[in-house]
């Protein structure tokens, strides 16, 4: 059964993807209709599913529950806004998210079929890992998701060559290292960090909005570091 949602000042919409009788939890497309609306912390919009989905087997590679999906999409939308639907509907097939050992993997459905042959404890990774859920069910976005965030990023920050190394070591970006920043960046907005050669280096959170960035002194932090590509060397172990 498909569920309809009541949005403030919006016509309730059916999920366009599960018009057929699919179980809701298998349809991760539900959110995309929600996010078509302007972004509101849409906490209250989800209806709970049958109890079966609440029984979480941590070992099995399973689709995300609604809450998990919500948490993750919230996090993603900080960086790419409503472009999440572009992640799901791609020209080369439908992609979906699956949870395995507390990590969220982004894979095409064709790969999903092949992966079911492999027993759960032997499966290490499928497709691309986007991030993991912590013990308290918070979603932490990993650097491995950068390839998918970067093309759809709404707010970007460019770092000067001199400050690249510092950022790649895990430090925050200071005003002196800031090359460019997109206009209308709000404070605490999720941003993707690029080098001046347009090579994505990681992502972070803007500490100040664009206006303030111009005024503030050179030694103050303008972008908080969240993840950078240097982690491939520094934190190789935690990627798996």
């Amino acid at each position, binding site marked *: 059964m498909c569920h309809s949602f009541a949005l403030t000042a919006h016509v309730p919409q059916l999920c366009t993807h599960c018009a057929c009788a699919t179980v809701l939890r298998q349809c991760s497309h539900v959110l995309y209709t929600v996010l078509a609306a302007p972004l509101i912390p849409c906490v209250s919009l989800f209806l709970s599913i049958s109890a079966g989905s609440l029984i979480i087997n941590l070992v099995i590679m399973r689709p995300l529950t609604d809450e998990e999906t919500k948490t993750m999409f919230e996090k993603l939308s900080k960086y790419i806004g409503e472009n999440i639907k572009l992640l799901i509907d791609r020209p080369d097939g439908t992609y979906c998210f699956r949870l395995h050992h507390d990590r969220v993997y982004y894979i095409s459905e064709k790969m999903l079929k092949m992966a079911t042959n*492999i027993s759960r404890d032997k499966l290490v990774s499928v497709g691309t890992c986007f991030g993991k859920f912590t013990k308290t069910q918070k979603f932490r976005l990993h650097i491995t998701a950068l390839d998918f965030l970067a093309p759809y990023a709404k707010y970007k920050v460019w770092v000067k060559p001199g400050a690249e190394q510092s950022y790649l070591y895990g430090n925050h970006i200071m005003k002196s290292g800031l090359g460019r920043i997109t206009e209308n960046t709000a404070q605490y907005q999720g941003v993707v960090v690029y080098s001046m050669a347009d090579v994505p280096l990681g992502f972070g959170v803007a500490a100040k909005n664009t206006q303030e960035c111009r005024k503030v002194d050179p030694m103050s932090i303008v972008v908080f570091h969240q993840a950078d590509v240097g982690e491939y*060397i520094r934190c190789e172990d935690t990627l798996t």
Partner: protein
Amino acid sequence: MGRKIDPTNKVKRGPGRKARKQKGAETELAKFITDDEPKKLSSRAKKRAFKRTQVTVKPKEEKQPKKGFSDENSEWLTPAKRKRKLEQSEGDEDSDSQWEDEEDLDEEEKEEVEANEDEDDDGDMVDDYGAMEDSSEAEEAEGADSEEEELLPIERAARKQKKMQKATTQEEDEDDDDDDEEEEEDEEDDDEESEDEKMDDKEDEDDTIQMNLDGVDKFKLPGASEREKEELVPLDLQSIHQRIKDNVDVLSHFSEKREEGKERTEYLSLLKSDMCTYYSYNPFLMGKLMDLFPHSELVDFLEANEIQRPVTIRTNTLKTRRRDLAQALINRGVNLDPLGKWSKVGLVIFDSSVPIGATPEYLAGHYMLQGASSLLPVMALSPQEGETVLDMSSAPGGKTTYMAQLMRNTGVIIANDASADRLKSVVGNIHRLGVTNSIICNYDGRQFPKVMGGFDRVLLDAPCSGTGVISKDPAVKTSKDDSDIQRSAHLQKELILAAIDSVNAESQTGGYLVYCTCSIMVEENEWVVDYALKKRNVKLVPTGLDFGKEGFTRFKEKRFHPSLKLTRRFYPHSHNMDGFFVAKLKKFSNTIPTAPADQKEEEEPAEEETPVASEEPSKNSKPAKSKPQQKNKSPSQEKTETKQTSKTISDSKTTEKVVSKNKPAVKSKKLKDDGPKQKKIARMDEEDSKQDKKTKEKLLKVSKVDEETSKKSEAGKKEESLLTKTNKNKKKLLQKKSRMGKNKFKTLKKMLKKQESGL
């Protein structure tokens, strides 16, 4: 007074010719003798030095006219030649052949120009050598081991000088004053010189050199007493090195240079112990290497293992292009070149001011640090877009990511590795390089056909002894012994069978398996591939790599299938990459050839189970022993057969399965392979059925029956299948053995007669 230089000769050496003063023999000689030579030269080294003196004069003389054109040759030595050379050197990238061409050009030109002057120059140099020799006679060199050999040019020089000047005593007096680089110890020198004088009058200088060699340059084996001394006080490395060279030289011209009464084996054993000491190998490995390479090539190989191969990287074409990457790295201060004509993605790093493994481009996944030899198996496999590919031993992920970039992130790649720790690096590399079509799992490769099958292509980079990558891991020199090699070979055989069974022969685009190792041992390479050819329906196909040495088709007492020539071997000393072996196999049928005895049993279940080959180490022996009940089951034999066969097939080795359709083909195969296979199976029969003679006999019956009926129609097969027991014992034993010895054959005959009479 001593050295007389013909003023008409233009001594073109270095700047300031006019100001040039005779600086003494040492410095003069240093220009003629290359720095590579040690003080004590073997006979071959002397020959080489002589040749070098002939050649080196030419380039020196050439360069000067090129620079200043102040020479008389400037008229016809045009600058165009120089430009051509320069253009050639700049245009080509790093191919060795290009440099060789240049050298050839140089030599040709030099030969044209300096034909006449060379001889005189040689004479001059000969003078120096002659001087050296004379003076050195007075001095005694240490020379702990064998007698030292003279320089050929020295002898020539001496003779020439004597001819020209006829004032030997005066020369010697004067030459004694000169510094002496060369160490001569032999009293024979005096005798040789007298001989030389006589010979010179009659023969050419070259001939006399050869004669002198025979007379003079004898490498004497150290006797027992000398060996004992060496054990107490080991020789210094340099003398060992010299002795190795001398030994190799003697062995290559054994009939001419051998000592009377000394066998070749003595020379060989001395050489082996010397090389073990000098290069720090254990005797087992050194023995193996001596079997693989001729002696001179062996020395090259060992030398190549002492130095590192150049650092190479592979461009990640999913994210960037090679020229863009090269440009970005050059901007960072890296000195690099394209790898060669055979690779479009490889770059070799000469030196770098930044750490290559930590540049922002590396972190962004634009390239991967990878050995040049690791590019070869993936190039041979050439996975196409949209295929399903398996990499059975994928850590640290270089080949997997290369395959993914060739497939443009389409299709699916299963990256498997048996070690969970090393899989972390695979995960890291896959994510860093932006590969999205991969599934990473942690199975033992031998289990793979059970987990999944039907791959279009499979890559097996088998774990090996690592004898090809000694430069990376010198511990291999001392730690490998026979059991290691045998263990590796056994594992590799199991893995290659598992890999073959995972390939889908009916794949539209593929059906290929590439087997590769970073080892140079024949036991791990050709033997394993040959084993696979015998055990499965696969054939070797060309790898597509046009360089590299062909694999062996025979080695010592082993004989391999002639198609082994299609495999490729790579060596550090000849290709400047890690030792490697690549073989590309095509599977042309999904059926698994069984031994002739097992043919009939496997008719029915064979069809069901062909795609899922079970190739685990046989558990036959256990169930076989548990169920020896052949005689009791008659009516339900067929049904139980199928059940049991299905069970046994799942447990037993792959030899059991034969699709009924393909039976004729299989049968014909079996008939052809009767000879050697029968012997093997017979032996296996003996081993397995030691405990149960009855089952053994029954199996023999069955196998005999099978053999006879193999020529009959399928109806005959059914009868035989009825006859053959459904016991797991029988089937499993039969699976292993389709052949028997004479006695067994006879007993089978008797049994058959009884059966036939009984029926």
